[in-house]
């Protein structure tokens, strides 16, 4: 493949993800602390972050576990929470490597953030996906290990305000894409639908409903 100077590289993806390294790390710490508090081993918590690599799915697993829920209940929650990754995978598939093992490894770097960043240029970009995903993978996993090992040290991290960084990031990416009244209406409808459903449905369902509604509603 020829290198074109204005084509993003993996390092560019990593740089794009850099602004929320601290937030990702703190989220990882939080997961490690909560997991160990529920009796999950430190090694188990870290392995979970390195394999499942999904904050929402992992926290949901802990919640169901804390309620003495069954494995089936855990897997149902995880599936509902992460079903949107099917769509993320489909939307970036055309940009991934040809080799199936590389494709799978690249797809494993999908997160809400790396997916959104990889689409910033209009068409999905593999290097940005991998770079941003790797940064998030490393901070999330090392954060979990740190939290599981000595999490009690950090008492109240909310004072730093970092929990606002991720939603702010999604909002900025959304603002970049809102170019017409129709886009704005779609944004408003998506937010409203999620907020209306949130109190009545299990976690994960609101986002799935928005996804389904957006696919059906948008005229092709």
């Amino acid at each position, binding site marked *: 493949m020829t290198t074109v100077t204005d084509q993003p590289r993996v390092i560019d993806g990593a740089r794009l993800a850099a*602004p929320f390294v601290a*937030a990702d790390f703190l989220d990882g710490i939080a997961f490690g602390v909560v997991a160990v508090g529920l009796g*999950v081993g430190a090694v*188990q918590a870290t*392995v*979970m972050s390195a*394999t*499942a690599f999904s904050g929402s*799915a992992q926290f949901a*697993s802990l919640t169901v*576990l804390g309620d003495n829920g069954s*494995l089936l209940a855990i*897997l149902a929650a*995880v*599936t509902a929470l992460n*079903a*949107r*990754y*099917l*769509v993320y*995978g489909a*939307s*970036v*598939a*055309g940009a991934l490597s040809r080799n199936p093992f590389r*494709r*799978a490894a*690249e*797809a*494993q770097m999908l997160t809400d953030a790396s997916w959104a960043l990889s689409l910033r240029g209009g068409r999905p970009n593999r290097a940005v996906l991998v770079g941003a995903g790797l940064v998030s993978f490393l901070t999330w996993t090392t954060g979990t290990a740190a939290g599981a090992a000595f999490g009690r040290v950090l008492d109240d991290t909310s*004072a*730093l*305000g970092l929990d*606002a*960084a*991720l*939603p*702010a990031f*999604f*909002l900025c*990416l*959304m*603002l970049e*894409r809102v170019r017409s009244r129709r*886009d704005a209406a*779609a*944004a408003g409808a*998506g*937010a*409203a*639908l*999620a*907020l209306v459903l*949130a109190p009545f449905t299990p976690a994960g369902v*609101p*986002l799935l409903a*928005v*996804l389904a509604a*957006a696919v059906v509603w948008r005229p*092709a």
Partner: protein
Amino acid sequence: MTWATIAAVAAVCVALRIAAPLLLAGRALPPGVERRLDGTIVPLLAALVAMQVLTTRGEPHVDARAAGVAAAAAVFLVRRSLVLALAVAAGVTAAVRLL
């Protein structure tokens, strides 16, 4: 938590990520499908923001984060800098919590 549970959760997460790329095997999506997927990006990002800022464990809940995120959006619309916007989000949220 048992290792079997951890393996099962990981299997579901990995499968959901790699299913479409492996099944599509390099073929591009039909243009109609691609356009529909494109149309999901804005509403999905909006829903992510709304859920993260305006709810806590599924219940409506507004706190300092809302101010931080709103300030970040305003800064981003003027300066178009993600780094600056995220710094403002964290800074304003922390400041409001101090009040």
